[in-house]
C-alpha cells in the first residue's frame, strides 16, 4: 500500500461513518480527504471538479474521481431500468444505494486509505433528496445510508431553477426526464415540471442540511469566482491536522 501523501499525521479528528459504516475500513486508516460537490445538473459541478483536480494535481496531490451510477456492479442495469422507467420507488432507491455502496467499498475507501483526495461528483445527499421529494421516509434513508462516510467537505452549488433551465437548454437543447421529475406528475409540461421539481429538490436539500451540514456555495456566479472560493476552503482543509 502506498504511503499517505496528504496527511502524514493520520486521519482527521472526528472522522465518522453516519451509521455502522464499513467495518473492514477502520476510520483511523482513512488518511486521505473526501470532498463532495453537490448540485443539480447545470449547477457547474463537473466544471468545478475538473478545475479542482487540475489544481490539486499541480500541487502534488493524488486524486480520484467518483460519481453516481459508475459502479462495476450495477451501473449498466441501473441505466437500463431508468430508460424504461419501470422500477418502483423503493426498488430504484435500493438500486442506487447498491451502486453507491459498491463504489464506496471499491473506490472511495481504498483511495482514502492510500492517502488520495477523493472528489465525489454528488454523494448520498442527492440520492436522499430525490427520495425525500418522492415521499420516502427520511428515517428509512438515514438507516440505509448509515454505511456512508462523512466527507471532509460537502459543497452544495446552489443555482436558481430559472437559471438551471437556461443552462440545461443552452447545453442540450432539451431537459432530462429525471432532472425534470417527470415521474412525479407535477405537470405534463416539461418546462413547468422542471422548475417545480428543482424547487422541490432545493427544499429537500435545505431540509437535509439540518442533519448533514454542508457548505452552500452560490452557484449563480461566474465559474472562476466559484473555483476561487472552493480552493480557499479546500486549502484550509488540507493544512488542518
Amino acid at each position, binding site marked *: 500500500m502506498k504511503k499517505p501523501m496528504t496527511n502524514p499525521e493520520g486521519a482527521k479528528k472526528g472522522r465518522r461513518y453516519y451509521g455502522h459504516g464499513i467495518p473492514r475500513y477502520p476510520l483511523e486508516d482513512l488518511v486521505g480527504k473526501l470532498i463532495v460537490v453537490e448540485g443539480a445538473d447545470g449547477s457547474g459541478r463537473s466544471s468545478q471538479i475538473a478545475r479542482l483536480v487540475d489544481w490539486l494535481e499541480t500541487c502534488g496531490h493524488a486524486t480520484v474521481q467518483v460519481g453516481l451510477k459508475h459502479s462495476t456492479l450495477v451501473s449498466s442495469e441501473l441505466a437500463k431500468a431508468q430508460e424504461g422507467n419501470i422500477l418502483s420507488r423503493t*426498488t430504484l432507491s435500493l438500486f442506487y444505494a447498491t451502486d453507491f455502496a459498491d463504489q464506496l467499498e471499491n473506490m472511495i475507501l481504498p483511495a482514502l486509505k492510500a492517502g488520495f483526495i477523493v472528489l465525489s461528483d454528488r454523494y448520498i445527499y442527492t440520492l436522499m433528496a430525490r427520495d425525500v421529494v418522492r415521499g420516502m421516509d427520511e428515517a428509512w434513508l438515514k438507516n440505509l445510508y448509515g454505511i456512508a462516510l462523512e466527507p471532509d467537505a460537502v459543497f452544495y452549488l446552489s443555482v436558481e431553477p430559472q437559471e438551471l433551465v437556461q443552462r440545461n437548454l443552452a447545453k442540450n437543447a432539451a431537459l432530462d426526464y429525471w432532472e425534470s421529475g417527470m415521474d412525479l406528475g407535477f405537470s405534463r409540461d416539461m418546462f413547468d415540471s422542471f422548475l417545480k421539481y428543482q424547487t422541490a429538490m432545493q427544499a429537500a436539500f435545505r431540509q437535509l442540511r439540518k442533519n448533514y451540514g454542508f457548505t452552500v456555495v452560490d452557484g449563480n456566479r461566474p465559474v472562476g469566482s466559484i473555483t476561487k472560493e472552493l480552493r480557499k476552503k479546500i486549502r484550509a482543509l488540507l493544512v488542518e491536522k
Partner: protein
Amino acid sequence: MMKTFAELNFPGRLIAVEGLDGSGKSTQIYLLKRWLEAEGIKVYFSEWNSSELVKSATSKGKKRELLTPTTFSLIHATDFADRYERHLLPLLRAGYVVLCDRYIFTAFARDVTRGCPPDWVRGIYNFAALPDIVFFFKADLEVSLNRILEGRPKLKFFEAGMDLRLSADPYESFRIFQGRILEQYLAMAGEFKFMVMDANQHVEKQQALVRKIVGERINLARFRRRRPLPLPPPLPPDNKAKETEEDLAA
C-alpha cells in the same frame, strides 16, 4: 411494529416458507400451491431472488465475486423490493393468496451471518409487511447438509459462504455457514411467530399439516375465483436455463 397483510386490511394473504437449503421447503410450498389451485383459489407463487431486472447484476456480482456483505445485502433487497412493489403488492390488493419461497427472514438470517448489523438489515426491509403465516422447516443440520452435499455438487462461492473465509474447503465452509444461518433463524422464530415444522418427518405428513394449518388460519372460500380467469404466469415466463434451487437461493 411491523404488521401482517391481514392486519393492514389487505384483501389478499401471504404465506411464506423459510428454512435451510435442503430442508424440503420448496417441495412443501409447491404441494401447497397445487392444492390451492385445485381448490380454485386465486394463488400466485414467487421465489426469492427472481426479479428479472436485478438478476443480471446479481449474477454478475456473484460470478465475478464482486459482492461484499453490504452490496450482497443491498442487491437482494433491491430484488425483493422490485418483486414486492410490482407483483406482490398489486396481487395482494387484488385478493390473491401469495406463496413466497423465502421472504425477508432469509435476508435477516444471511446478512446478519455475513456481519451486517441486524438493525440496519431490518430497517431496510421495513417497507414490507409481515406474512400472514410463516412456515419454518426445521431439519437437523446434518440432514439438510447431507441432502445438499450427498451428490458432491459444485458449490458456488457465495452459496458456500466462502466470502466469510470460514474454511478454505468449500464443503466445510458450507457446513459452518449453514449452521450459523440456522442459529439466526431459530433466534427469530419466536419474535416472528414461525410455525416450526418438523422437516425430518415424511413429506406427505408435513404437507397434510401445512394444508390443515392454512385451512384453519385462512378462510379460503373468500379467495375462490368467481369467473374462471387463468392464473397469472410464473416469472420469468419462459423457464430458460432452469437453475437449481441452490443456484437461485445462493
